[in-house]
């Protein structure tokens, strides 16, 4: 009973943090998505130099801790005159990071498609662009949803690293509640439940999208299509 009362008291305060967390996540995911499209184009269809740039990007961002990337942007960049507020710095760091992962998932989806359809499209006179837009993209897009969903959930949790540069998002507010009430156990239980609900909603919505857009013969099986 105590916990429910505790929850009723502090929930409004924590929910304000939910707004920041979700805002941060949404901006980062959109940024990451757009950048990932460029990266995957470079990785799959780019000329040698473009391929190398895109590959280096992916390796660097996947091979270093996100916290280091965040500090680099928030604490490091001011030395060369680029000063960002905590929200922008965190959105940028998470967005740049997720771009690398999303690009790899897109690439996997594209390369799992049977190559013959691209050949058939070109043989009928479609340009490469038309074949990409009308054949590769709709198919790879469907196949990538499960992995993209996973990535979206991972990044939703990762928004909590913004705490490290003083952004009062959800986790930071839970800590504040803890210090005010000295009920850390309750505070972090509550925040864990909130994260669980948020990630649950994201995962379920994308699962629904996957089922609604499903086409026979195009389901993701983790491997190459026949």
């Amino acid at each position, binding site marked *: 009973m105590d916990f429910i009362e505790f929850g009723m008291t502090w929930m409004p305060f924590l929910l304000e943090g939910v707004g920041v967390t979700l805002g941060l996540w949404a901006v980062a995911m959109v940024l990451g998505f757009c950048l990932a499209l460029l990266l995957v184009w470079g990785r799959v269809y780019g000329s040698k130099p473009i391929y190398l740039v895109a590959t280096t990007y992916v390796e660097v961002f996947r091979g270093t801790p996100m916290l280091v990337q965040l500090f680099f942007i928030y604490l490091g960049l001011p030395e060369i005159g680029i000063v960002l507020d905590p929200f922008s710095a965190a959105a940028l760091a998470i967005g740049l990071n997720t771009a690398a992962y999303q690009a790899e998932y897109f690439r996997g989806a594209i390369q799992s498609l*049977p190559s*013959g*359809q691209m*050949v*058939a*499209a*070109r*043989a*009928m*006179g*479609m*340009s490469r662009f*038309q074949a990409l837009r*009308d*054949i590769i993209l*709709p*198919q790879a897009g*469907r196949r990538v949803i499960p992995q993209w969903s996973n990535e979206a959930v991972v990044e939703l949790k990762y928004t909590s690293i913004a705490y490290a540069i003083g952004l009062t998002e959800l986790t930071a507010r839970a800590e504040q509640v803890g210090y005010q009430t000295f009920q850390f156990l309750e505070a972090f239980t509550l925040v864990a439940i909130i994260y669980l609900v948020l990630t649950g909603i994201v995962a379920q919505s994308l699962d629904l999208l996957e089922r609604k857009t499903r*086409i*026979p*013969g*195009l389901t993701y099986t983790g491997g190459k*299509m026949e």
Partner: protein
Amino acid sequence: MSDNPILRVRDVRKTYGGVEVLKGVSFDLERGQSKIVIGPSGTGKSTLLRCINLLSPPDSGSVILDGVTVEERGINQIRAQIGFVFQEFNLFTHLRVLDNVRLAQRNVLGRSKREATKRALEELERVGLSDKLEAYPAELSGGQKQRASIARALAMDPKLILFDEPTSALDPELTGEVVQVMKDLANAGMTMLVVSHEMGFAKAAADEVIFMEGGVIVEQGPPSTLFTCPEHARTSQFLRMITHEHEEG
């Protein structure tokens, strides 16, 4: 042989990794003619078809379609005039049958949706798939897939259609329906170049047979002569081999 063939292939050569796969191939295809290309595996039959529409551009030689040299410039407009039917069908997995047949009409030929639909329905009826318009490729049998892909090629109103082993990926009991569609096409005056060992089609519908081996055309002629009294020993050897295979299979 007229001086105005729909397709003129002259001395086409193609090398892959230092190996010359096509060593100078020349032939003509007249309007309304069906030619069938036979020959052992690895002889360059698929490569020849892919050279004709520049899916694999030849290293030298020329391909002339209806008086126009096939070259990289404007290649998409030329490819639109050459149908291609693949062994593996290569239907677009995410599109229903009707959309498979409409897509290139829309984005390559620039036809209106209405016009594209009309042509698609006509060709799907011709191949006997009027009841499968809303099906996805994965919901079709192999024979239905191949007939859909033939309709997709036909709807573009091509000047000729290239077939690369259209029945080889099919279960034996399904080849008949595809062969029948191809025979009907040939009889209706479609110009066709068919790589296939389907003797039923060759005997009933081919005007000429081309026997290829080792990257060259060994001999060509009407099925009646080439199948009964071929000039070259290699041809008769090969024919014995494939009839033997067919009897065993």
